[in-house]
């Protein structure tokens, strides 16, 4: 028996040797490798080449570059020329203080200052490269006018920049994920990647910029680090925390890993332009599964508040409206827009049709009585009746005695048929990552800079306290672009000091 086993083991080993294909391995080199070709990575690659890097390689896991930035509508800046030309006052000092106060000074103050100070100049830099802006706006009623809307959205910006890549000696490798950092004597000296043919690429470089976009699509990391792992991801897929994992292996410290980029509550499978979704995202009446209000519905203005309130009340809400309010949304238009895709005052012409679809999909409910509606929602009838009676009395008194909502959004629920539409917490990304300096250099768990390693965009932490800050419209793509430039400018100088 023992001999047979030995023979078998030998045979196995022998066949394994024969069977294994000779995996090709290639050695490449570049001045700088950027891992991830989203907004921050593309800008970092462009800016570091502009700053003097002779050769740059951008590794992109997906078949096309752009990541979530493709869908960005506009970018934050404080005191830009575009703002000045429109008499919009948003001094950099004010923006800095607002961000720091919002974070209760948990944010990295030096990083926030560097970001805010860079932001107006970045608008001009983008314009110099050929990027155009369509308008300046805010993303909720009364919000700061900090949102510089890209012509052709984020993709428009990316197209302008990547067009010049060939002449700048920037090579994009798609379907080629970065796997590991190459570290020599404590200094980051390149990246191991794997291309679409399964070949291992050892890319030796003087500096590495990590820009893989956070970990929203990595369930395990979401469970480990965040407060509500079941949040519905919106936007680009494939954000699996590759860069953060690589940096953790290199002993990087982290910051703000629990901060998720909460989005407006919604339904999975409904497109952003859905009128059913737009009807949910109005500041009228929201209840939880107990049929009780759980927030001042104006949290939809700065929607991370909505995410927080909904998550703590269990993660399932219903927006409730009557035939009157439905008619108002269809004929007069909505009070709160859904970004620039469904702007404020849009008349929800498709709402009836979309409601039918919602009802068929069991996410929207309608009944001629509150009792009937509660039954369909699975909410306690008495609770819902009491909630609506109280809410209607607030509407009559023009004062929300419960959550102090602006009375102009107290729309009574009196005229049948009544409607209830489900919504759950959604998120656009994660916002924590490596702990960085104001030059986006990654710090180790010992508090020292890891030479040659930079983290940008949603792979870098330090911009937030406990929640996503929506005061400054365009802040996430703003941080992606500005941090990309900040890292690039430091890296361009750093690589001059490195012998390869």
């Amino acid at each position, binding site marked *: *028996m023992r001999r047979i*086993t030995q023979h*078998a083991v030998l045979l*196995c080993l022998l066949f*394994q040797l*024969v*069977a294994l294909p000779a995996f090709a391995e290639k050695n490449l080199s570049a001045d700088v490798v950027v891992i991830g070709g989203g907004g921050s990575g593309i800008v970092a690659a462009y800016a570091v080449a502009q700053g003097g890097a002779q050769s740059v390689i951008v590794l992109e896991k997906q*078949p096309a570059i752009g990541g979530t930035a*493709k869908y960005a509508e506009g970018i934050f800046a404080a005191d830009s020329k575009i703002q000045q030309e429109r008499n919009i006052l948003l001094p950099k000092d004010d923006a800095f203080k607002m961000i720091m106060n919002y974070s209760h000074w948990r944010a990295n103050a030096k990083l926030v200052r560097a970001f805010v100070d860079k932001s107006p100049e970045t608008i001009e830099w983008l314009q110099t490269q050929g990027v155009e802006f369509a308008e300046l706006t805010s993303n909720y009623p009364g919000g700061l006018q900090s949102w510089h809307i890209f012509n052709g959205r984020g993709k428009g910006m990316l197209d302008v920049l990547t067009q010049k890549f060939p002449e700048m000696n920037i090579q994009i490798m798609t379907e080629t994920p970065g796997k590991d950092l190459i570290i020599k004597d404590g200094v980051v000296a390149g990246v191991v990647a794997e291309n679409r*043919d399964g070949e291992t690429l050892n890319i030796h470089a003087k500096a590495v910029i990590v820009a893989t976009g956070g970990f929203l699509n990595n369930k395990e990391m979401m469970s480990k680090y965040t407060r509500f792992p079941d949040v519905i991801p919106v936007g680009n897929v494939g954000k699996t925390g590759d860069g953060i994992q690589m940096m953790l292996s290199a002993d990087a410290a982290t910051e703000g890993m629990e901060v998720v980029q909460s989005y407006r509550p919604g339904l999975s499978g409904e497109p952003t332009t859905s009128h059913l979704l737009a009807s949910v995202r109005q500041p009228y009446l929201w209840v939880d599964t107990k049929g009780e209000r759980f927030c001042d519905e104006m949290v939809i203005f700065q929607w991370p508040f909505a995410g927080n309130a909904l998550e703590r009340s269990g993660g399932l809400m219903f927006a409730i409206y009557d035939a009157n309010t439905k008619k108002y949304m269809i004929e007069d238009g909505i009070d709160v827009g859904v970004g620039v895709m469904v702007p404020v005052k849009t008349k929800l012409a498709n709402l009836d049709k979309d409601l039918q679809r919602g009802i068929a999909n069991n996410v929207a409910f309608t009944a001629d009585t509150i009792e009937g509606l509660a039954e369909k929602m699975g909410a306690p009838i008495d609770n819902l009746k009491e909630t609506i009676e109280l809410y209607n009395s607030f509407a009559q008194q023009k004062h929300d005695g419960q959550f102090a909502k602006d009375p102009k959004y107290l729309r009574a629920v009196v005229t049948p048929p009544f409607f209830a539409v489900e919504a759950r917490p959604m998120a656009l990304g994660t916002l924590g990552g490596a702990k960085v300096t104001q030059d986006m250099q990654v710090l180790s768990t010992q508090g020292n800079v890891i030479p040659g390693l930079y983290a940008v965009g949603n792979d870098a932490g330090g911009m937030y306290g406990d929640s996503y800050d929506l005061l400054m419209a365009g802040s996430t793509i703003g941080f992606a672009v500005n941090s990309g430039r900040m890292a690039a400018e430091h890296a361009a100088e750093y690589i001059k000091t490195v012998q390869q």
Partner: protein
Amino acid sequence: MLRSILICLCTVYLIGPFNARAIEVNQIHRENDITCKNCHEIDEPEKRASDQACIDCHSAVPGSVKTYADRGMELLVNIHDSHEGQLRCTLCHHIHEPSDLYCNSCHELEIITP
């Protein structure tokens, strides 16, 4: 027990490499006598075929499909004019295994990918 595991393992190792070599193309390419070399340039391919290999035969691609039919939101989109830019043909059109529409990693397009 150990013995049977080992026998199984050996069988897998024995069959594995032969299977890898006997890789097959789909029916339509088989019927048109497409060989490895036609697409991969060599008889024992080491790399994916290039887009040019596809385009050499498929010079015209059909473009328009109706999407979102399941949701009552009919949109006419050109499936080959993706907002992702020019993608490689074999990302969706697989030759050695069933095809798989890349768009559907985010969207829900009800179309058949040949």
